[in-house]
């Protein structure tokens, strides 16, 4: 590898690509598998020297909004998130299609098919289609890098945000990436139309028409995109459309002989009709292979499903309807013989993730179980998204819900409204500042009879220990939202404070109103990391 080639994760390739393409600011909230984009930027000398914005945002909505503000000023910007983060950011994201961009804006979303670290496996291309925003979907790390340049150009040429869609296996896989010549940042340049971003109904109607009018041009771009390639094949009984990383799984199976079928590599949307028509005219059947949901397949099939070619894929059982793809699933769909392989022996036990030894959540759950589950039975504790969600598993089995960021407090409130007593919420410090504060305000306004545990480990732990916006502010935030200061209780969760912890919970269960209990002890992982850094720093 030469000096210009780096060994990068797909996530890191996106970060480096944006940096080289003249980005001025990144905005993101951590979420697997997107976290490493911002982490790379935060460790980048290039970003530090240019003072590129790279501080985490409170949540994905604030991230996209801040990015949109930067785009307003004419500068290039990127917002990054996991797929479910895009739900949080859906409001600004959808409307950014209507305002359009000034400086280039890329919304990078990393989907997690098979739910390795997620609550669902939704496909972000659906939301991009909904917003009528073009999508770039890299097949490899080099494309992930290069597409940042393309996406910014596209964004500025058509005044539209662009979605860069990754999936787990490209986000978290490393490969050689050849860098291009870095571009300078844009200068500040306000939008020519000072009302472009004012979505008052009268203006929004005009902007929306503009968005609709852009669509044919965006499709032209996809028809002529270097990332969409049509490979001819002699056997036209079948045509293959493979999007993003699925293209690799097709090619993996044609290493020894060339693919005999016409093959469309699809990496830029809107769906390029030119190629689809060519394939449908040529082939008896079309097999659509895409990572995620059958987005292209469904569109091709249509409701009536009576086109000239038979469309196959995830909806017809050639490929599984759910879960991520791999070379073997694709091999079967292509009708090729499976490689011989052995079944794993039965002796293997599953090894689910677990709370780390010494984790403060362990002490919190011991106390919560004693004060609530042992006294009132199972079913009273609503939880949230983070390491502490592992409290659902043995040996704790302490929690009864995990739906979306912040839902613990609001679900506990709804259950209390219905008459459930006790009704408790468990939420982490970072999740609380992400989406828990507004729900707590709802509870305060109605003086709901709930106990909220904010498990404060002073970091965003599950994604690897990023800074938490809640750091040192939880008391003030809760008091500011109107929680009675006497019912904001702190405790250091440890084995020797267990009885005191249980006592506090009992006292707050007796209080008819909103109580907040904050068990505060640093994450053992970040503590260890700090100790290591200190040790290494001391040696140097």
């Amino acid at each position, binding site marked *: 590898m030469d000096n210009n080639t780096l060994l990068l994760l797909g996530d890191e390739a996106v970060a480096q690509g944006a940096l080289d393409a003249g980005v001025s600011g990144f905005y993101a909230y951590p979420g697997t598998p997107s976290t490493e984009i911002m982490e790379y930027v935060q460790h980048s000398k290039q970003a530090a020297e240019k003072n590129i914005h790279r501080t985490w945002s409170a949540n994905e909505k604030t991230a996209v909004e801040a990015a949109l503000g930067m785009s307003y000023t004419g500068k290039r910007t990127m917002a990054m998130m996991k797929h479910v983060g895009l739900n949080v950011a859906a409001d600004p994201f959808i409307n950014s299609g209507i305002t359009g961009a000034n400086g280039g804006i890329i919304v990078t979303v990393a989907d997690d098919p098979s739910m390795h670290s997620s609550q669902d496996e939704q496909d972000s291309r659906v939301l991009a289609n909904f917003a009528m925003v073009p999508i770039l979907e890299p097949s490899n790390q080099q494309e992930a890098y290069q597409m940042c340049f393309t996406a910014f150009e596209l964004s500025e040429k058509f005044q539209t945000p662009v979605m860069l869609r990754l999936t787990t296996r490209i986000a978290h896989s490393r490969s050689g990436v050849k860098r291009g010549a870095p571009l300078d940042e844009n200068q500040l340049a306000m939008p020519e139309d000072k009302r472009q971003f004012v979505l008052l109904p009268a203006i929004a109607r005009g902007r929306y028409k503009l968005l609709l009018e852009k669509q044919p041009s965006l499709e032209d771009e996809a028809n002529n995109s270097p990332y969409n390639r049509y490979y001819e094949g002699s056997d036209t009984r079948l045509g293959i459309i493979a999007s993003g990383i699925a293209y690799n799984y097709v*090619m993996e199976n044609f290493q020894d002989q060339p693919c005999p079928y016409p093959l469309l590599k699809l990496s830029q949307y809107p769906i390029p009709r030119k190629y689809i028509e060519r394939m449908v005219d040529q082939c008896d059947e079309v097999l659509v292979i895409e990572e995620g949901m059958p987005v292209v397949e469904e569109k091709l099939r249509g409701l009536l499903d009576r086109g000239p070619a038979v469309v196959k894929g995830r909806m017809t059982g050639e490929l599984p309807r759910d879960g991520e793809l791999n070379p073997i699933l694709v091999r079967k769909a292509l009708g090729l013989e499976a490689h011989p392989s*052995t*079944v794993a022996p039965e002796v293997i036990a599953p*090894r689910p993730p*677990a709370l780390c030894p010494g984790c403060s959540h362990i002490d919190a759950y011991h106390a919560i179980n004693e004060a609530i589950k042992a006294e009132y039975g199972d079913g009273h504790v609503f939880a949230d998204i983070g390491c502490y969600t592992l409290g659902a598993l043995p040996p704790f089995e302490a929690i009864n819900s995990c739906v979306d960021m912040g839902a613990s407090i609001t679900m506990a409130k709804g259950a209390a409204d219905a008459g459930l007593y006790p009704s408790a919420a468990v939420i982490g410090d970072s999740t609380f500042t992400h989406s828990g504060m507004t729900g707590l305000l709802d509870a305060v306004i109605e003086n709901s009879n709930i106990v909220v545990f904010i498990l404060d480990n002073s970091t965003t732990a599950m994604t690897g220990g990023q800074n938490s916006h809640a750091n040192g502010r939880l008391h003030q935030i809760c008091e500011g939202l109107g929680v009675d200061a006497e019912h904001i209780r702190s405790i250091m969760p440890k084995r020797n404070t267990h009885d005191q912890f249980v006592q506090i919970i009992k006292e707050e269960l007796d209080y008819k109103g909103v109580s907040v209990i904050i068990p505060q002890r640093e994450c053992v992982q970040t503590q260890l990391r700090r100790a290591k850094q200190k040790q290494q720093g001391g040696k140097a």
Partner: protein
Amino acid sequence: MKLDIILAGVGGQGILSIATVIGYAAVQSGLDLKQAETHGMSQRGGDVQSHLRISDHTIYSDLVPEGAADIILSVEPMESLRYIPYLSPQGWLVTNTTPFKNIPNYPDLYKIIKEVGKVPHHVAIDADGMAKELKNSRGMNMVMTGAASLFMDIDFEKLKEGIRYSFGRKGQEIVDLNIATLEAGRKFAEENRSS
């Protein structure tokens, strides 16, 4: 040339340090590389794997197909068995025999080792014990890398360079210790391979 390796272990055991050393050696040998890693929830003590693909021609899939792995390199015995469907019929299973017990229902180790023995090409090595003997308490991963290196079509010297690259920051003493650990692992595999 193509070399597909499944690295296996438990979150926190540091299998990516192995990937770094082998990956560096591959890149220095002018080979193409793809390396799919496990990040996120499983890193909290769950089962983790990394797919390391090395080739002298274009690598497409980031994942090793089932039945195609040339080596399963596992730093934990039960985890080595989890990925057996990936192993090619000619492939080598190289595993540490020291169990990592963080689940209440960890199976009888004897049964696990017996299953390892059924794999036609295998090396089972008490890498934790060997690392301790070598006074390199954190050297288990390099014992394993050395043992598996026997079945890699990569210049052994390049792997040593990988260690210099990975551990250079920590000083010459640590580099030398880990190179000795790597060599000891390889020697064990030479003397104890199943076939």
